[in-house]
């Protein structure tokens, strides 16, 4: 199991367990993490699972694909550390990952 911490826009942290092979978005939805909507269900067809990757994890998590960049155009307040959480696969080496959620999705 891989531990992932979601910090919401008010600063409340929630640490939940994700399964390797699933996605960070699925982990959030399964555990009722707020501020992640995932309207399209993980098809990279909306931008409502937008998260900010904590600086220390950016390199390990990696950069968005061109398709994900296109969807990020629709997200709110996009930052250099913005990602769509449905496009991040949970892996053993992401154990301890910290992401922040924006105060609004779509």
């Amino acid at each position, binding site marked *: 199991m891989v531990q992932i911490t979601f910090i919401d826009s008010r600063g409340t942290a929630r640490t939940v367990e994700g399964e390797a092979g699933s996605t960070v978005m699925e982990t959030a939805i399964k555990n009722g993490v707020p501020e992640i909507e995932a309207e399209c269900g993980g*098809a990279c067809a909306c931008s409502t699972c937008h998260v900010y990757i904590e600086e220390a994890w950016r390199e390990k998590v990696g950069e968005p694909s061109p398709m994900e*960049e*296109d969807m990020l*155009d629709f997200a709110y307040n996009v930052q250099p550390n913005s990602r769509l959480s449905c496009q991040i696969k949970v892996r053993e080496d992401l154990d301890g990952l910290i992401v922040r959620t924006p105060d609004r999705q779509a």
Partner: protein
Amino acid sequence: MSEPIKTDVVIVGAGPIGLFAVFELGLLDMKCHLIDILDKIGGQCAELYPEKPIYDIPGIPFTSAQGLVDALLQQIKPFNPLYHLNEMVETVEKIGDPLFRVTTDQGKVFEAKIVVIAAGGGSFQPKRPPIPGIEAYEGKSVHYAVRKMESFRDKRVLVVGGGDSALDWTLNLAPIASHLTLLHRRSEFRAAPDSVNKMMALVGDGKIDLVVGQVTALSGGDGQISKAMVKTNDGSAFEIACDALLPFFGLTMKLGPVANWGFELKNNELIPVDSAAFETSIPGIFAIGDINWYPGKLKLILSGFHEAALMAQKAYRYVYPEKRLVFQYTTSSTSLQKKLGVAPERPAAPARAAT
């Protein structure tokens, strides 16, 4: 107001469930008009994820969302439904027993014995960018669509976005506006490469400005914008003077006018129905697919198909109150096969001219 279009059924929403409703209603001799706010048929399947796979349609191990829409269109072709795209149903009024007057935002009026709401997650509407106070300018100097290009003549226009809408309107309005700036958060564009090349050529000729950054605030007064505050990715900030702002941030689903049609909504977004006929609290108005709610509801396309079939049985009783409904199978019923245009050929009777 135009002359009302008279029909048996108006279906609100041309997604997969609205389309299959045409099939089930058609087998029972009910004519349908479909109204959808999108410019295409297929709802979310066509707009949000046309190329994505679907694995849970019974008997079809794999299809794409667009593939499913195309197959449904082929399946309902024998019933010749009529489509009204780019139109949003604004009001539904009860004027008979049952008879409904349905009006769209384009001023079209329908008179239908039955209304079927198959509106999924609601209407697709332009996404509002997260700029504080933008509401105050909407409709006057902030526009999410261009209805009349002439209204931008000799104005300083700021277009925001990197997709086809943003690029198309940049190209179309460049010759009309006194000055045009295209603002996008990065230097890559997802719009068609041809449009991007044309836009770049205009930038090269000094005809328009291209700025990489995001709008953080607007200023102006009385609905009239005067400038936009912009921040670039390296943190620097500056202002762009403009008379009109056109943000193109894609579409989002909102319940829309359905909220005002007299239903007591579940969680403010779903229409409660009975699970025997998927009829709402107003007899003659049905709700099927993702927009309805009943105990045990699952938002699955296959559930919507089931709901369409049961809905059609009850709808028949309103449209043909004097007729008896005989339940039939497409596999064996010659009358259903005739409606589908697949009735087996029979030796033709000797031709005789009608007298």
